Structures are given as C-alpha cells and as structure tokens.
C-alpha cells in the first residue's frame, strides 16, 4: 500500500539571464529559485489524500457510466434529451474530478517571479535599422533609381489584373433593380399560381400576388387590396398620375402595391384593416394605404410603388405595365432613370 504520494523532485534553480552564452533567452525569469515543488495541500495527511483520491475516482466512474449510457442511447436510436443529460454528466464529473485534484493533490505552490524584460537592448534596436538599411540605402539613394519608379506602376497594373477574376462572382447590376417581371397584360396570380378575378377579393381583403409565370420572382411580389368605398389619394410618380392605377369592382376600389419594403426589403406582410395600413414586420415601417402607401411610421422613407392594374374582359386582374419606379430598398443610382 502506498503510504504517501511521491512526486519526482523538480530541480529548481535559476536558469535566468546568464551572462554570455544563453543570455537573451525569451523568458528568462519565469523560474523562481527555491520553491518547494513537492508541496500539495494534503501532503501531510495521507488518509485525507486517500479519501480524496477515492472521491475523484468515483466521479470519473460516473463519467464512465455516462459513456456507456451514451453508447446504449445511441445504439437504441438516439434521444437528444438523454444524450444531453449523459454528455453533461460525463463531462461535468470528469471536470469536477480534475478540479478537486488540482485543489488538493496537484503539487506546487503559488510562485512569484520577476517579469523580466521583454524589450531588446538599444544595440539590437539600432541593429535592426542597420540591417534594413543595408538593403535599401544603396538602392534608394542612387540618383534616378529607375526600378523604384517602375516597380510601383507595374505592381499596380499587374495587381489589378490579378483581382479581375473577382468580377466573375456576379453579373453587372445594370438595370436589374429598375425592373420587375411585371409586364403589360400579366395576370395577377397567387403564390400557388392561381389567377384571380377582380371580384375574388372581398372588401378589406388582401392577397399576395405575382405576375403569371413568375411566382418564384422575389422582386415582383405585390399585395392587392380591396379598399372598399374608401377614396385613395393618388400620387404622381415619374410623370405618371397613379389615379388610373386603381380599378373598380362594383363600388369598391382595388389597388396593388409592391410587397417589398422600401426600407430593407422585407415582405410587408402585416395588414391592419382597421387603420388600412400595411406594416413591415422587420422594423415596423407602416404604410398608409389610403395615402398611396406613404410611410407614416418607422424607418422607411419612400412609399411602396403602386402597380398599375387593369381588368380583362373575362374578369381577371392584370397589370397594365411594370411599376413606374424601382421597387424595394434604395441604392446609389436609384434616381437615375426617368
């Protein structure tokens, strides 16, 4: 039986900054001299030490049991909650054992040492510049040194050329942001492709629509709303008086607006019938439908573009043309098209 735990004695001493050879080691002062490295809290109490050892062993036994449990759980099909409990148990018991070990049985004391110097001496400091100058001075101080003048533009041109392939990542933005897939005569269809008639939308009803054939096109999403007998103030945009964008269904007015928030592009998907407002769930920009979807609250600063509507003789709702302004959030040259 063990009577005491024996650790090989660590030879301590200075291996600090000696003079001459070996001086200038990176961290010369970390080893303090004459510390008792064999001490640990339970050194003089073998019986307690033994108890603590047993306790740690038991904890690690828990880890082993959790490990076996994990394998069983896995073999029998897996179950996340059980796996969580067992993983926690296994790791935590292992960690707890280590902590007790560190506290009671790991040898060594708090030590104090000099921080030492981390700066180099002045000779080294000036030496580094001397070394640098060895290369640069003879070249750069020569009058009319041609290569320096050449290297910069050559590097610039060639560097730029090597960056060129990055342009393959995407296509030119061109006018893509100015148009959507709405075209004259496009029927309004729902998300599952069903075309809608002018009398499909009840008073105060609201529907999300896409141009027929383009139900996957995110930029073309629009909402069509039956505003009942309310009167909507119309705006004039890019020379188009939008009063004509509204169609009637009996006494009721039907209007459609882009569903892409002019703030940061979320779908404006909340509809408040009582106040006749569209609200964007992302940052709560609120658009007043009866004011042509002017923003009345929140960070959006532009109205939702209005879709010009028409009704086919067979009653289907169509767009008479694309939006007359770019939809969605702003961008640098948004205003550049008439």
């Amino acid at each position, binding site marked *: 039986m*063990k*009577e005491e735990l*024996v*650790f*090989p004695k660590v030879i301590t001493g200075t*291996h600090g900054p000696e003079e001459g050879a070996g001086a200038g*080691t990176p*961290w010369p002062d*970390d080893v303090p001299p004459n510390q008792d490295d064999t001490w640990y809290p339970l050194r003089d109490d073998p019986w307690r030490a033994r108890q603590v050892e047993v306790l740690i062993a038991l904890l690690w036994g828990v880890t082993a049991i959790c490990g076996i449990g994990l394998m069983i759980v*896995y073999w029998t*099909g*897996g179950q996340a*909650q*059980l*796996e*969580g*409990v067992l*993983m926690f148990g296994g790791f*935590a018991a292992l*960690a707890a054992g*280590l902590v007790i070990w560190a506290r009671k049985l790991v040898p*060594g*004391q708090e*030590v*104090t*040492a000099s*921080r030492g110097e*981390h700066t180099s001496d002045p000779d080294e400091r000036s030496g580094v510049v001397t070394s640098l100058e060895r290369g640069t001075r003879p070249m750069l101080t020569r009058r009319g040194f041609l290569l320096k003048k050449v290297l910069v533009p050559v590097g610039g041109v060639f560097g730029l050329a090597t960056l060129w392939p*990055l342009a393959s*990542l*995407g*296509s030119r*933005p*061109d006018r*893509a942001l100015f148009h959507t897939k709405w075209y004259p005569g496009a029927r309004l269809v729902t998300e599952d492709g069903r075309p809608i008639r002018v009398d499909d939308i009840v008073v105060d009803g609201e529907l999300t629509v896409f141009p027929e054939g383009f139900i996957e096109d*995110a*930029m073309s*999403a629009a909402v069509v709303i039956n505003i009942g007998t309310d009167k909507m103030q119309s705006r004039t945009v890019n020379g188009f008086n939008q009063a004509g964008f509204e169609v009637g269904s009996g006494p009721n007015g039907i209007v459609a607006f882009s*569903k892409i928030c002019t*703030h*940061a*592009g*979320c*779908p404006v*998907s909340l509809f408040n019938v009582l106040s006749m407002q569209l609200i964007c*769930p*992302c*940052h*709560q*920009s609120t658009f007043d439908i009866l004011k042509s979807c002017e923003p009345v609250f929140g*960070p959006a*600063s*532009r109205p939702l573009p209005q879709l010009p509507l028409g009704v086919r003789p067979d009653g289907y709702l169509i767009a008479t043309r694309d939006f007359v302004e770019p939809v*969605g*959030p*702003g961008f*640098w*040259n*948004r*205003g550049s098209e008439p």
Partner: protein
Amino acid sequence: MSTLADRAAARKRAERSQGVFDWLDDRLGSSRWLRSAMDKIFPDHWSFMVGEIAMYSFVILIATGIYLTFFYNASGAIVVYHGPYKPLDGQHMTIAYESVINLSFSVRAGLIMRQAHHWAALIFIAAIVFHMGRIFFTGAFRRPREINWVIGTTLLLTALLEGFSGYSLPDDLLSGGGLRILYSIIQSIPIIGTWVAADLWGGNTFPGNGDFFPRLFVLHEFILPLTIAGLLGVHLAVLWRQKHTDFPGPGKTERNIVGSRFWPQYFVKTNALLLFIAGVVFGLGGLVQINPVWVYGPYESARASSGTQPDWYIGWLDGALRLWPHWEFRSFGHEIPNPFFPGILIPGIIFAVIYAWPWVDKRIYRDYGEHNLLDRPRDKPLRTALGVAALAFFVDLTLASATDLIGSALGVAFETLIEIMQYGTFVAPAVAGVVAYRVCLRLQRGAVHPIQRPVGGIMVRDAQGGYHTLGAPHAEEHETGDEHELEPAGAAATAVGEGTLE
C-alpha cells in the same frame, strides 16, 4: 518497502521522460523553451478565465462544426420534402434547408450536435464580450497590450460574422429574412453597393442565382474559422510573450508576477474548465431547444412574421435599423439609402472607436507608460462611466430589436416603444454613465484598497442601531452610518493574506 519502490519507479519514469525530451532536443533544441513554457506563471483570478471560456467554446465549435459539415448540403436548389417530420411534408424548400431538417430528425445524434453547436456559438460570443469588458474596465489594454486589444477587436468582428453566417446557413424563414436585410444593407453602400451585393450573391438581385449558399458555407466553415484560429494563435502568442496582467495586491508589483505554474496546476485547472464548458454546451444542446428551424419553415421571399428575433449578438444591429429615423439623402440623381447609416456607418464608427480606444485612453489620462498591474474599475471612474454608458447604448439597441415582442407583452404600442428607445439611445448612456461615475466615487471612498492591509475585526451593532468595528484597523462612521471610510493601514503594516479584490 513500498516507498522505496515508488521512489525507484519515479526515477525510472524521469529517465524515460529524459529520453523523450533528449530526442526532441537533439533535433530542435527545444528543452529551454519547453521548460520555460511549463514553468510559465498564470495569475489566478476568476475574470481571467473568461477569455479561456471563449477559447474553449471555439474549440467545441470546431469539433461540433466539423460534424455538421458532414451532413449540411449548401445548395439553393429546390426540392419537395418527404421525410419523418410530417408538418413539412410536401413543402418546397432548398436542399440546404432540407439537409438541416434531416440532420435534426433523421441523423442519430444530429440534433444534439446541431444544438450544441448553436449554444456554443452563443456562449462564444457572450464570453468574448465579457472578456472584452474585463479588459476594458481593468485597463488591461494599456501599453504594452495594445496589440492584443486590436487583434481582439478583430476577433470580435470575425466572430460576429462567423455567427451570422452560420445562423444563415439553414435558409429558414428567419435567417432568410435576415439575409434579405443584409443584402439591402450592402446594396445601400454608396457607389459600389449594388456591385458588391451582386458579387456576393451571384446574379444581380436578391436572392441571387443560387451561388450564394455554397459561398456562405465556404465563408462559414473555412475562411472565417481559419481567420479566427490564426488571430487567436497570435493573440495567445502575444499574451505568452507579454505575460498576463494582474490585479494589485499584497506582494504584487509592476515588475513581478504571482500565480501558479502552467504545469501542473494551471494545466489541470484549465482542462477542467474545457471539460466543464463541454458539459454545459452539450447539456444545453440536448435539453434546451435552440433555433428550431422546422418551426419557422423554409424561407419564402414573400413571407415574414413579426415577433421574431435574431441571435442575441445581432440584436443591436437590428435595433439600430429600427431606431434610425426615416432619413435618406438624395441629390443629383444619387441617394444614400436609409440602411446605410444604421447598418454600415454606425457600426463602422463604433468599431473605429473600439480599435482606437487604447490611444484615446492614453490621451484622456495622459498616461503613456507601461502597466502590468490592472486598474480597479472604480479607480478610473471616467473610463468606467464611459464603458457603462456604451453598454447601456447597446442594451437600448438590443431591446429595440424586440419592440414588437415587448410591446405585445406590455400592451404598449410599438410606436411608443420605438420613440422611447430613440430617446433612450441618448438618455440611457447618459444616465447609466453618471450613475456609474457616482458609484465609482462612492466605492473609492468606501472600501479598502487591496494594497492596503486587509481589514479584520468584529462588527457590532449598538443600541442606537449604529455599527462599530471592534479591533484594528478602526472604521470611522460618516453621515448615514452605512458609508464607511477606512483609515489606510500604516505603510509599516505588513500585508498578509489575500487582498480584497472586487
């Protein structure tokens, strides 16, 4: 005699180790370095573990993340789902989303790995922020540690990107909405915005041409983690070189370092911490649901719901987008759209200030010297107040990202809340800063300084309700009786025991 046998065994062991290290040293000359590494001293203070928590969460992120990469499929192609999770049966979704659903429901141990990964990410960034707070409030960034402050800030930035990119991979309704907003923010950058957005997503409008998810994946599981690992390596190498700071206390000076050695004490403890964090992360991963993307559903561009939250560390950005007024700048046919200001400019300024802080601090305190001993936050009331004010600012922004939730919980209109929080961006930091400043001064007056002698004695309550301390050092009472100003212990008094820190 067993003791003798033990001794002999120990000698044998030492000889064997000697052989190994000699082999190495013959080839690398490594012994000197290894020895100083094992003897390296680490001060003990709980707040120094926070950086380690960040580091170990990162280790767990890598481990669980590698597992996830075996199952995640970064494709934007559309499929129809037919799998064990019935509510989604027959729905159209991207392969990316489907692979996450399969990972959660059809891969054994997939769910716990996924959830542990997500929890580890949340803890990782929380630990970074906490770590940064301890560096800031204790002045650990002062010379010579400015380099680590700068590297650390870059780590924070990279970690935020890493978190956001990972959050976006499943292509669920929530993260898809977040990507849409990100696209708009990038698009809002003057002149180059539309180009950059098109080049990141492929194609020229949102959601691009399907190249995006593979790119996002490469960013998330290759470029950003490697960046973090590389920066972290430098961070730790610099720490190693400069040695750790420490709080002032008995026997501690600017020129010495007090603590336990790397081997064996620190080594055992730090491994215990790693294992404990692993336990917590996997425990949470198994027991506490996180990011249930099957509940949110696949991303559809025309859908969004209210009351949804991004991961906590993105909340402040979302809040900034909500609070920034409806301003846009338009002239000469050009515009700077609204999201540019809260989405690019404000975060840009914030990070610029963070990067520059060590140098700002030098000017404020006219202190250009080297410091190895830390400040107690109360001893630098201005810095502390500014830090607390900054935290209040972020809390306000983060709360703003939940205006719809808070509003419906309290029965207050979100309009009112937004307005309150808009004022809050000025008021909250001001109030919090002033309070923090006052508290610092009060604490300064009220407690023993660690380099003074620790206070002993017995506190008694007298018939009048006042308190007195029996025994030296003597505490005098002031004004109210609850505020003590303690006589500094005489310089001659020898410091014993541990100082009262914090």
